[in-house]
């Protein structure tokens, strides 16, 4: 790794010495980064006590990972997919719903104000540099929605050194992907201007074959869909994504303009529901959606001695979604709806360093305000404004070995009560090789527009009387890091326990025999354990493993919550000199998955194997490519090699075994 971030430096402190052999020495020089793969368990900016990961997409070069792939490999995270490439995928952290995870792009909230969730399939990984994942944290920074946790996608941005990236791949189901990115700096008069431009695209027919469910009753009787296999139809999709970044020094700071655009258009096959060759899929429905996020950000250096800097941002997010279904003409008019949501907002953040005797403090102040405006064909327009103030402190003792982080956010959304979100985190690092953490925080979520105002279509409607969801999260754990232990190097073991108590959780349920609507449900509890282990044996063998145990239930009935597995395990082995050849094998086991409230109906457990082989042609000196490119990777990969029947929900199949090949060049 050539790049070192503060996170990595902090992490390096963990592994600076072998276990117990050294006395604490916070000034010790960091050793080489402890990175087994692209995930760094350490400290997230702004969330120093949170359990989280920083995922660098560059560490997965030539592996064609989607955002759903990268996140699903993390402990505590479950990604619910509704198909293959280009099909929707949503995120669950520690048993949360997708609406209970705050997703930001370059610090600006990207959750849909219409549905509350975030579709991971709409993000092009080649345009993303880093993914910050905070589990069970983020409520005081992000406000409404960060009940399960938060992720921030940091897009690739301009840099003083010119960088060019191109990638392309093709594979099963007529799936083609490509991307191009350039960042550099240029002179504009006497000013230096950083810029970046990125594009990525995906086109897929998505016509994968899938196995259909066979239901086995308690007395061994079975009933099956016929035929036993079907092919996904009307599942073609085209996606485009683009970024633009401009940055220049202005006065005491840097002014940056960032643009993130995504577009997606394709068929909507719907559910696998019925007997017959097409399995009841919808051959004609389609959807188109696009979104644009623009941000103008000004970041200053320290304005005074104690000041750490000021960040001011103006942003605007627009999302537009259209859905067309001519088949609904059977009992009414064809469905042809459009909804657009415009969200202008502003944010300010600053911090000050204070030293009070032996106690070092970092005081932070943040202000945030935005307004969502919904304009839709099928319902009246709605708008609501939200404003928030955040205060935080980072109190360091014993040269930073102990850190206490209290924070408080006050947030008010039109139509809902003022919410106070307190949080307290603690981090203790008695030795360089051991770090302990604990957190307690409140979180909440205001209902999204769809939950409140979904038009009454008889069988489905919104509920304008919904209350906000309310939750308390607690977690504690440790990270143990060993620089060298026999042949094993850079070993890290992390374990965390978490518990979340949520009330008024919003669930779409059957409210009478024919109507589904969202309602505030009673109390529910989720608790579990996350374990992660990673190490390397020489530079040629890198191993990482993680495991999550999750127990979730409704308090009133003690019934399990559906939709998330009780346990999930992941293992990855990477062989070969990392700059020349990568042979990667991955295994993910997912436990039985409840698909009905109250238990009793579950999808079977599964083990999915993936593998890839990548070669950096620029590393082959006899090809003399180094004059042209730092890296020219070619690769072939296979996913779901054992051809498992994979589903995260009962009615949405995922692809079986599939292969792809591609290249990625960087110069």
């Amino acid at each position, binding site marked *: 790794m050539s790049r070192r971030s503060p996170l990595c430096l902090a992490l390096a402190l963990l592994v600076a010495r072998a276990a117990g052999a050294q006395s604490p020495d916070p000034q010790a020089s960091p050793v080489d980064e402890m990175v087994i793969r692209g995930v760094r368990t350490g400290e997230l900016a702004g969330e120093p006590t949170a359990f989280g990961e920083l995922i660098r997409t560059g560490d997965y070069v030539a592996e064609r990972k989607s955002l759903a792939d990268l996140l699903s490999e993390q402990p505590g995270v479950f990604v619910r997919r509704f198909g293959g490439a280009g099909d929707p995928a949503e995120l669950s952290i520690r048993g949360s719903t997708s609406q209970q995870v705050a997703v930001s792009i370059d610090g600006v909230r990207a959750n849909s104000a219409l549905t509350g969730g975030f579709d991971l399939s709409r993000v092009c990984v080649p345009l993303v540099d880093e993914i910050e994942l905070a589990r069970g944290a983020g409520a005081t920074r992000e406000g409404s929605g960060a009940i399960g946790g938060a992720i921030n996608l940091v897009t690739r941005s301009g840099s003083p050194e010119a960088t060019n990236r191109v990638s392309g791949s093709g594979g099963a189901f007529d799936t083609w992907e490509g991307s191009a990115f350039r960042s550099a700096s240029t002179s504009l008069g006497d000013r230096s201007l950083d810029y970046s431009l990125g594009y990525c695209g995906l086109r897929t027919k998505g016509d994968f074959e899938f196995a259909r469910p066979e239901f086995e009753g308690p007395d061994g009787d079975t009933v099956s869909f*016929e035929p036993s296999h079907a092919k996904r139809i009307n599942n073609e999709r085209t996606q485009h994504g683009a970024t633009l970044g401009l940055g220049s020094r202005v006065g005491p700071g840097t002014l940056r303009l960032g643009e993130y655009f995504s577009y997606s258009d394709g068929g909507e096959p719907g559910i696998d529901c019925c007997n017959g060759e097409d399995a009841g899929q919808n051959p004609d429905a389609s959807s188109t959606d696009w979104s644009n996020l623009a941000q103008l950000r000004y970041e200053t250096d320290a304005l005074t001695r104690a000041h750490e800097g000021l960040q001011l941002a103006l942003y605007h997010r627009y999302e537009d979604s259209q859905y067309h279904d001519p088949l609904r003409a059977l009992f009414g008019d064809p469905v042809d709806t459009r909804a657009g949501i415009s969200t202008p907002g502003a944010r300010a953040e600053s911090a000050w360093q204070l030293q009070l005797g032996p106690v070092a403090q970092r005081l932070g102040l943040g202000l945030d305000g935005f307004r969502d405006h919904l304009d839709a064909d099928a319902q009246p327009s709605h708008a609501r404004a939200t404003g928030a103030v955040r205060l935080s402190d980072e109190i360091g003792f014993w040269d930073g070995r102990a850190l206490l982080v209290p924070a408080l956010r006050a947030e008010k959304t039109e139509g809902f009560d003022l919410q106070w979100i307190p949080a307290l985190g603690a981090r203790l690092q008695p030795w360089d090789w051991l770090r302990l953490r604990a957190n307690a925080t409140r979180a909440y979520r205001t209902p999204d527009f769809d939950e409140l105002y979904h038009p009454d279509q008889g069988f489905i409607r919104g509920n304008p009387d919904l209350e906000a969801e309310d939750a308390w999260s607690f977690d504690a754990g440790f990270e143990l890091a060993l620089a060298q232990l026999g042949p094993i190097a850079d070993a890290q073991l992390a374990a965390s326990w978490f518990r979340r108590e949520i009330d008024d959780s919003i669930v779409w349920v059957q409210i009478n025999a024919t109507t589904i609507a969202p309602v505030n449900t009673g109390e529910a509890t989720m608790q579990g354990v996350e374990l992660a282990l990673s190490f390397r044996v020489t530079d040629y063998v890198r191993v990482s493993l993680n495991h999550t145990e999750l127990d979730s239930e409704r308090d009133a009935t003690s*019934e399990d919550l559906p939709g998330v597995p009780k346990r999930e395990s992941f293992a990855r082995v990477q062989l070969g000199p990392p700059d020349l050849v990568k042979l990667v094998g991955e295994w993910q086991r997912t436990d039985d998955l409840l698909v009905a409230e109250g238990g*009793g109906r579950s999808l*079977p457990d599964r083990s999915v194997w993936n593998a890839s082989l990548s070669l950096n042609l620029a590393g082959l000196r006899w090809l003399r490519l180094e004059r042209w490119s730092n890296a020219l990777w070619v690769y072939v990969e296979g996913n779901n090699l054992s051809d498992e029947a994979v589903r995260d929900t009962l009615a949405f199949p995922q692809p079986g075994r599939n292969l792809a090949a591609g290249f990625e060049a960087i110069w």
Partner: protein
Amino acid sequence: MRRAGRAGAGVVAACVAALCLACEGSGGSGGLVVKDERTDPRCTPVANSLPSGLALVPGVADEAVLVQSQPPALVRFDLDGDAPLVRGDASLAPNGDSDGDGVDDAVRSQQVLALPLAAVTGEVTAVHARLALVSTSNYEGVVFTDPSVPALRMAQVENPDDAPGFASSDYPFLPPGGTETTRTAISTRACVYPGAGASDSGNVAIAKDARCDAAEPASFLTNLTAGTAIAAGRLFAATSNLRNSGQARFYPGTVLVYDLEETGGALRVRPHAMSPLLFTSAFNPTGVTRYVTASGRELVLVSETGAIGAGTGTGNVRTQAAIDVVDPVALRIVATIPLGFAGPAFEALAIDRGNRIGMLGASSKRQLYGVDLRPLDDARLYEGDGPPVVLDGLTAGFPDARLFDGDHPLVLPEQGEGAPPAQCDGFTHVTWSHDATELLATDYCDGDVSRVRVDLSGAPSFQPFAVEDAFAPLTTDSLGQERGPGPVRVRPGVPGADYTGPDAFVMISLPKAQLCALRIASPGP
């Protein structure tokens, strides 16, 4: 260097191979087994969450058949145990072909209607131990099954030649006019001509359907096949004819009439060429019941909900309900019993073993409706061919057959802590106890079973006297528990004497489709 070169060549070769072969899997060569476990010792789950029909098998005291929606199947149950035991199932649409014409329903529907519609299962009528009729919607039809196996039954399906009042082309899913073929179902998709100036339940004029006879001023295709019955050698199938679900508008209701012969185990069925359909008095005919009067006259009773929405409560009922009395020989509606703004449930009338009283549940309220069937023995009803006699007490010389209607329902007592009325104000199904001394009524909203004592020794009297907390109410605190009871059946025989198992069987739909066994009158083990 050489080693690296070989590795590079290997990777390139692999890439090419991947692109060329694509090597796509079948998405689960080992299949995908979804396990359904018993979460309530009284209940046995079946696939998915929308069971659509339940019937006891006549002549077989300890068996019932249930229709599950997805995958579409008829499931046979043994009722003797503490929980019903599955004894087998039959696919109702093998490989997507519910009528056995050799073509996937969706494909055939696309060819005929330009809409790829698959069969969605509905009601089941167990005619006798070897014949049960299952109605299907979207791909409209009545499927013939043998519940004793269970299995599909073959039938000779005929489309008669054109005749006055009958056009074979009005049945686009039947074989060509004047021909017959072997199938497993008969299509109930038919062109209907309500006449000039006809309007739907929302008073919106009915235009021409391009798929029907262009010479007719108004037309539509039947849809949502509901209840069925066989009487006088004829098959009667009600079609709801929904026009717009969002606005709860219905075309005029129809009952399709077919000639049906069953000889030596062979079935033969064809549309009745002289009178292929009847228009019902009210919108949305759903329940169809064969009824024999005390004097032995065979009738067909059709219950019609009127136009109703997809909500709950009084406001959900848009037009008036009725029960039509059909003479299955003369093929005309001889009488109608108006029920007012009742919005009855979709089931067939529950008739006591003395053939005296017919009861209906309610689709939108926690109440029941009932009619006295004795006036149907009046021979004057069947004389001539005039309009139906309205049995509301206002027609001279005829009694009021209504016991409980929309204005005067049999209200089931409320329990505390039920479903919020604004969300679920009641949805009831009703049946009689084995000796006709009690009514048992389930309420989907509150999850309970109400018991109503009935005295038929003189003027009928009804007295609710107990409420059994059989299932959980539809509240937010009960998510995941057994809820949403629907149709209820009581097995024949004296509990404790003729059998020792549970006596009442209820189909529930939440959190998943299940058939549950209750001991209401049957003593515990």
